[in-house]
C-alpha cells in the first residue's frame, strides 16, 4: 500500500499534474491577496467570479453560450502552447510565438479582407507566414549563432508594425479596427459544422475547436512516434549525442522553428477567422496570446495532451477576470489578476523539482526512524 503510494508520487505524469494543480492554487491565492489589498470588501466575491467564469449565469443556455466563448479563445491559445512546447522539446525556446501569432493574424485578415480568399487559403497563407518567421530565427541560430530568444523578440516587434501597416488599408473608416469579415467575405469565415447550435447559437464556435484538439493529438504523435520526433527530442535532451550520431542539427533547428511558427500562426487564423475580434491597426504590442502560450505549455507539463487542458484553464481564468465588478476595481484588474495566475503557472517545472526534493527528504527521514 505504502509502496504503491510512493511510486505514484514518483510517476512523472502524476508529478506534473500535481505540480500544475499546486501552481494554480498558489496563483489564485496570490491573486486573492492582491484583490484584498486593493479593495478588501469585494475581494472574495471577485475571486469567485473569476473562478466561476461562465458558471455565473444561472440559466444553462447562457452558461453554455459563454462556455463556448471561452472555448473560442482557448483554441488559439492551445495552438500557441503547442508551438512553444514543440520547440522546447527540441531544446529551443520559441518566445517568437507571439510574433508568429501576430503575423499569422495579419496575413489571414489581409487574405480574407483584401484578397477575398476562402478561409482555408487564408489559413494556409498565415501558416506559411508564421513558418517564414520561424525559418528566419532558425536560420539566424544555425548559421550566425544568434540565440532564438533574441531574434524572436526582435521579430515580435517587426511583425507587429508590419501587420499594422498591412492591415491599414482594410480598416473601418470610422475606427481603427479592421473590417468585419462577416460583412466583407463570408467565405473566409471558418465553417461552423453545427457547433454553434450546441452552444446556444454562439456563432463563434466553429471548426477551430475540434481542429485545435486534433492538431494537439497530431503533435503528440509526431513527437512520440515518428523519426522526426525521435530526432528532435534527442537534440533537445543531448545536443552532443545528436551531433555524434549525425543528426542534421541545423536543418532540424530550422525545421522545428518553422513548424513551431506555423502552429502559432494557425492559432491566429483559428481565432480571427471566426470574426470574434477585429484587429486594431494602432496596436502597440503583440497580442498576449503567444506569451500565454508559454505559460500554458508549462502548466500542461510540456505535453500536447496536457496543453489541451491547461489552455482551457488559462482562458477560463482570463474570461472570468472580465466579469469582475468594475465599480470596486479599476478596469485593468481582470488582466492583472489573470496574468498573476498565468505567470505562476509558468513555475510548474520549478514546483516539480521542489516536490521531488521534498519527497526525497521525507523518505530519508523515515529511513532514519526505522
Amino acid at each position, binding site marked *: 500500500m505504502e509502496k504503491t503510494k510512493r511510486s505514484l508520487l514518483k510517476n512523472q505524469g502524476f508529478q506534473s499534474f500535481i505540480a500544475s494543480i499546486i501552481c494554480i492554487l498558489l496563483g489564485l491565492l496570490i491573486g486573492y491577496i492582491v484583490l484584498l489589498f486593493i479593495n478588501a470588501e469585494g475581494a472574495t466575491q471577485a475571486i469567485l467570479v473569476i473562478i466561476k467564469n461562465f458558471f455565473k449565469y444561472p440559466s444553462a443556455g447562457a452558461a453554455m453560450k459563454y462556455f463556448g466563448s471561452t472555448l473560442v479563445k482557448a483554441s488559439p491559445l492551445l495552438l500557441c502552447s503547442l508551438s512553444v512546447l514543440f520547440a522546447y522539446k527540441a531544446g529551443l525556446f520559441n518566445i517568437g510565438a507571439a510574433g508568429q501569432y501576430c503575423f499569422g493574424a495579419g496575413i489571414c485578415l489581409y487574405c480574407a479582407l483584401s484578397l477575398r480568399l476562402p478561409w482555408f487559403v487564408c489559413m494556409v497563407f498565415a501558416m506559411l507566414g508564421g513558418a517564414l518567421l520561424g525559418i528566419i530565427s532558425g536560420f539566424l541560430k544555425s548559421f550566425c549563432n544568434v540565440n532564438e530568444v533574441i531574434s524572436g523578440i526582435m521579430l515580435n516587434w517587426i511583425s507587429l508594425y508590419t501587420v499594422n501597416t498591412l492591415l491599414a488599408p482594410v480598416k473601418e473608416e470610422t475606427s481603427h479596427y479592421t473590417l468585419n469579415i462577416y460583412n466583407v467575405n463570408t467565405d473566409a469565415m471558418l465553417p461552423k459544422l453545427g457547433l454553434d447550435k450546441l452552444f446556444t447559437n454562439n456563432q463563434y464556435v466553429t471548426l477551430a475547436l475540434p481542429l485545435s484538439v486534433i492538431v494537439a493529438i497530431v503533435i503528440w504523435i509526431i513527437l512520440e512516434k*515518428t*523519426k522526426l520526433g*525521435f530526432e528532435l527530442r534527442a537534440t533537445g535532451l*543531448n545536443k552532443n*549525442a545528436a551531433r*555524434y*550520431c*549525425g543528426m542534421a542539427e541545423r536543418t532540424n533547428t530550422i525545421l522545428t522553428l518553422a513548424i513551431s511558427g506555423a502552429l502559432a500562426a494557425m492559432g491566429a487564423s483559428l481565432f480571427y477567422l471566426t470574426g470574434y475580434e477585429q484587429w486594431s491597426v494602432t496596436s502597440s504590442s503583440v497580442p498576449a496570446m503567444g506569451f500565454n502560450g508559454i505559460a500554458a505549455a508549462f502548466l500542461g507539463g510540456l505535453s500536447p495532451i496536457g496543453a489541451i487542458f491547461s489552455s482551457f484553464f488559462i482562458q477560463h481564468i482570463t474570461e472570468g477576470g472580465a466579469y469582475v465588478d468594475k465599480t470596486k476595481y479599476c478596469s485593468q484588474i481582470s488582466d492583472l489578476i489573470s496574468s498573476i495566475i498565468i505567470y505562476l503557472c509558468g513555475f510548474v517545472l520549478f514546483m516539480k523539482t521542489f516536490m521531488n526534493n521534498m519527497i526525497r527528504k521525507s523518505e*530519508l527521514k523515515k529511513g532514519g526512524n*526505522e
Partner: protein
Amino acid sequence: MDIEYAVEMRNITKEFPGIIANDDITLQLKKGEIHALLGENGAGKSTLMSVLFGLYKPEKGQILMNGKEVNIKDPNDANALGIGMVHQHFKLVECFTVLDNIILGTEPVKNGFLNKKDARSKILELSDRYSLKVDPDAIIDNISVGMQQRTEILKMLYRENEVLIFDEPTAVLTPQEIDELMGIMKNLSKEGKSILFISHKLNEIMAVADRCTVLRKGKCIGTVDVANTTKEELSRMMVGRDVEFVVQKKDPDIGDTVLKVEHLCVADRHKGLKAVNDVSFEVRKGEIVCIAGIDGNGQSELAYGLSGLEKTTGGKIFLNGRDITHESIRERSIGGLSHIPEDRHKHGLVLDYPLDYNMVLQRYFEKEFTGKNGFLKKKNIQKYASRLIEEYDVRTGQGTETITRSMSGGNQQKAIIAREVDRDPSLLLAVQPTRGLDVGAIESIHKRIVELRDSGKAVLLISLEMDEVMSLSDRILVMYEGQLVGELDPKKTTPEELGLYMSGAKNNLKEGA
C-alpha cells in the same frame, strides 16, 4: 567496542524497479585503511557508495560512524561527517572554472566578498603536494576527462574529508597518473584517512588495498585480506568463473587499406594551436592499429577529426579509397565508420532515452526501424535492442525500456559497444572502449574486437591502457604532442620502450611519416 571501524554499513538493502541493487550488504571500513570494492558491472558498487554519501535511501540497514549510528540524509550531511566522494561520472559544473568547482559549496568569504585568492593558493599548494596537475582557470567543458578527475579529487582534499570514496577514479587516468594516485592514496591513508576504492583493475587493488570486499549481483560474496589472495582468486570470486587475462589471437591476415590519413591537422578548439599536427598513417583490413600516448597529446582530437565531430584544418582522410575529409558525420557513418566515443555521457548516449532508442541511435533511420511514412517501428527497435542486450550481456532493471541514465556505468558502455560493433563497420574507431568495464566484460569485448578484425575489418584503437595496447594491437603508433613519433611492433617492444616513446624521449619517425 567497534571503534576500530571508521564506517560500518550494516545489512544494507537497496532496490530499484526490477532489480535489487544491494541485497543485505555489510561493509566495514577500518580507520586508516584502503578498502577496495570489487564487482562486475552492475553489481551494486556505486549504489552502495551512493547510500553512504546520502544520495540514496536504503530500504533496510544502518550506517555507523566511529561506532555511532548516523543518519545521512543528503550529501551535505555526508560532507559534514567528513565523507567525500569522487563520482564515477563527475558532478562538475561544466561552464565553471576548475577553481570555482573546487570551492563550490564552501566558498571562502571575506567581508562579504568572495575571496578566491586564499582558495587559489590552497588549491595550488594541494595540487603541488599531491602532484595533481590542474589549470585553476580552465573551464571544465574544455578540459580533458583526466583533468576533470583531478579536479574532483582536489575538491575532496580541499574540504579536508576524512572518509574518501573513490568510484573508479583510475578508469580515466593514464598509467603514470594512476601510479601517482596510488601513491597519493597511500599517503592519505598514512595520514589517517580511510579510503573506499572502487576499481575493476585487479593490479591496482593488489597494489594499494589492504582489504577487498567482493560483490556479485547485489550480494556480498566476502571480504578478503589482499595480502593473502591473488588476482585469479579475486576475479573468480567476482565473476564466478576463471577469467583469461591475455587476449588469444592468431596472426593478422592483412588486406587492403581501409583508412588512409594524410598530413591531417586538427585545431585545438580552445587554445588555437594544432592539437593534431601533420599526422599520416594507414589502417588495413584485418589489423588492429593502436594509437598509444599519454592523455592530452591529441588523441581525442584525432578521433574527433576522423569521425567528423571536429573540422579538420588540413590534410586528407580516405575511407575505402573515398575522400571523406569534407563529408558529414552521417555520411561517414553510413560509409562504414563506427565510433565508440571517448565520453559516453557527452556523445555516446541520450541518457534520458530508454535503452532501445539508444541501441538504434546510429540506425534509427534505416528501413528496418523507420517506415516510409516516417513512423518509427517500435516493435523492430525493441526486438533489435533485445538481441543486443542478450548478446552483449547488458544488464538492466527493465530491459529495453530501462531509462539509460539509471544503468550502471559499465553497462552503459557495453550498450555503446554493442551498438557500434553490431553495425558491421568497415572501420571501427574505438576510443577507450573498455573504460569502466569489469574483467569479465573486458575479456568478452576484446574477443569481439578480435573477431571483427578476423572477419576482415579494420580497427583503430585509441587507448591509454598500457595492457590493452600491448595485448590487443597488431601495430602500435605512438602520439606525442600532436604528432606521431613512433611505430612499434607489440611483439618486439616492451612497456618500458613504449613509455619512452610516449613521453617524447624517443622518436623513430623523425620526419613525420
